[in-house]
């Protein structure tokens, strides 16, 4: 109540209201009070569109660069549009075609497997890393920065570096051969399954530092008294980690899970740089974004069909987002 008692008259009115009805004022009362205050001070304008005016710049950007392209994609997905050739309405033909296309299913499975493997790694490994670098020991700042370096490195540079590490005559294979661990080079980049695994390693490596920063922020909010109390009660470091750290950063874990799932579903660069334009030998390592690019780009690009696959990818992303949301709701309740 104090926050609306900005003037003497307002304060008096509140006091009067409080005498009559104990407890907080009802909605009608609040409206009346605000109205009086507004008239009195002349500061509060109640034109309904005032807040929209403030939102307008942001809204325009969202509508132009997010909403409009999205709606356009939905419409395109119902046409047989091509590059520089407006299409005619074909209903759900593109969706039917996608569902009957083996390549679509291959890309879908690759995307889902990619997400299922990458997400747990990106939820737990950065947490472990954050717990490590959170300790206040000399020189820890260097490690914090070092772990964050892959995040700011360009995806192309990262891809090229890993290509040199993983190729048949690259660093890893040379070491393996020198140690006589393998007789033939491991086909990290020339076998479709191994290529996906290699791309996953790169994604996880690049994401570690990024999500570590999220966890560092969350860990900063855990009261040290909890750890001290647990230590007095005889809890060891492992027990303290699972009984205090994990429950307190759980909301952050769900956020990281959702964010990393969305970015894993959108993976393209790692596969493109490691596996070439075809998406690995025979194109067997293609993910959904890779397929969308292949189908929609180029001068013979089928924009309509690519838009339909984009919408299907969007629905898949939505599933993972809703899942994350549900989990966090369940956690709150």
């Amino acid at each position: 109540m104090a926050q609306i008692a900005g003037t003497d008259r307002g304060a008096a009115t509140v006091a009067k209201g409080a005498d009559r009805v104990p407890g907080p004022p009802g909605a009608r009362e609040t409206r009346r009070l605000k109205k009086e205050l507004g008239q009195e001070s002349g500061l509060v304008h109640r034109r309904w569109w005032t807040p929209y005016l403030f939102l307008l710049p942001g809204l325009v950007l969202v509508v132009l660069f997010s909403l409009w392209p999205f709606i356009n994609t939905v419409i395109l997905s119902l046409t047989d549009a091509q590059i520089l050739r407006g299409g005619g309405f074909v209903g759900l033909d593109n969706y039917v075609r996608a569902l009957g296309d083996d390549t679509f299913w291959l890309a879908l499975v690759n995307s889902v497997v990619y997400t299922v493997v990458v997400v747990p790694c990106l939820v737990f490994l950065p947490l472990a890393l954050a717990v490590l670098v959170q300790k206040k020991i000399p020189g820890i700042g260097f490690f914090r920065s070092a772990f964050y370096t892959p995040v700011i490195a360009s995806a192309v540079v990262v891809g090229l570096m890993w290509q040199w590490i993983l190729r048949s005559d690259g660093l890893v294979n040379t070491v393996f051969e020198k140690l006589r661990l393998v007789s033939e080079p491991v086909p990290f980049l020339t076998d479709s399954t191994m290529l996906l695994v290699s791309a996953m390693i790169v994604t996880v490596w690049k994401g570690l530092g990024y999500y570590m920063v999220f966890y560092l922020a969350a860990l900063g909010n855990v009261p040290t008294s909890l750890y001290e109390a647990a230590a007095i009660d005889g809890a060891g470091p492992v027990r303290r980690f699972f009984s205090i750290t994990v429950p307190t950063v759980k909301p952050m874990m769900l956020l990281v899970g959702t964010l990393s799932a969305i970015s894993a579903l959108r993976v393209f660069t790692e596969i493109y740089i490691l596996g070439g334009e075809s998406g690995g030998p025979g194109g067997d390592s293609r993910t959904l974004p890779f397929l969308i690019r292949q189908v929609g780009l180029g001068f013979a690009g089928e924009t309509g069909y690519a838009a339909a696959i984009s919408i299907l990818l969007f629905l898949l992303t939505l599933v993972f987002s809703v899942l994350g949301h549900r989990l966090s709701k369940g956690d709150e309740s």
Partner: protein
Amino acid sequence: MSRGRLSRISIATAMAATLLSTAACGVGGSGNDNDAKQPEKSGKVSGEISFRTLQLKPTFTTYVQGVIDAFQKKYPDVKVKWEDVPGDGYNEKLVADAQAGALPDVVNLNTDSFQLLADRGMLADVAKLDPAVQKDYVPGAWDQYKLPGKEGVFAYPWYVTPEILTYNKDLFAKSGLDINKPPTTVEQFFDYAEKITEKSGGKYAAFMADPKSRLPGDWQKMGVPVLNEKKDAFSFNTPKAVEWVERMKELYAKGAMPKESLTKSDDTSQLYGADKLVFGPGSPGFIRDVKANAPKVYAKTQVQKAVTGVLGHIGIYTQSLGVRKDTKSPDAAAEFAKWVTNGPNQVAFSKEVAIYPSNAKGLADPYFSDKGDGKDPETLARALGAEELKEAQLDANTPVEWTSQIGDAVVREMQKAVKGEVDAKTALAKAQEEANKILAQQAKQKK
């Protein structure tokens, strides 16, 4: 319902309607084939024209600006507005501009972008703009800008980069091969690669596997009919093509090609420069890279004419200058495109970088026939490339029907076959089936 609520609903409805209508523009607004009429020349060379080049700044700024200045001096009523766009995203920008009706008056096109814009009726017929100009260009180059099923020629040929053969003399000789007897057929090329691999001991490879850069050229050189006679279906599934796949598979397994080159070939110069590859880059431009980055390997480089097999000549791939069909200044645009691609200007450009003129008079310049002492790879490459270009013919070019989508589909099957995951016959049958499926779909969408 309150008045405020009503106005909110009406504003939201208006916004949604605007949004939907503009969104729909993205679909239908791009329109079908451009119905602009062929421009008519007025006889007066004047006006402001825009000119777009592909990645020529800053290396060639002085040259291009010089050409523009000289043109403006000759035609003082013309103002040329030059814009250079980097290679990355060039095609995407072109498509976006074409979609928005904002194509430049004179625009630098490669084979792919030319085909798209000409097919969509966005380029002027330059043969109609200037019927006498044809004789100025090498025949193969001029014919490259005709489109099947369409009357006319839709761009002025500009500079060319021919295919040549380069190899490391020392590694070649080490394999027991005569450095002066280069392979002339694809089959012979494979035999040489086999001999090289036998002697390499795994230290170096013979050539890059990447089927994307080898096809359909290798098949054409082996006499494989890529398309049927009516040119309405692919017909490359032949015993000769099976032989190609089998040989590639065998050589790949033996280590004749770097394993990763099956999916990527972007480090050819790097591997060649590091003595890890016997057959080097097949373009004169790359020889300059080797000279700059690996002088020791450059000294060991032998240059020969490209493998042409049963065709006996190379194909011709030129950059070109297209004139926007609905340009407001057709006289100035056509005159300028002709000016940039004329003999003296193309020769001057070729002296700056390892490219060749598509202009017949330009190509006849003594600069291109000078072999020097026959020992410097760069000079030799220039002379051999020019000789090849005089006989270049379109039948060695990738057919227009072999679009990137079709090429990708075929390459994917070939990669599996070369790796030994699928047998050659099955892979070829599937590749042909896929290619014909895409071709039929593209034909259906064109109607």
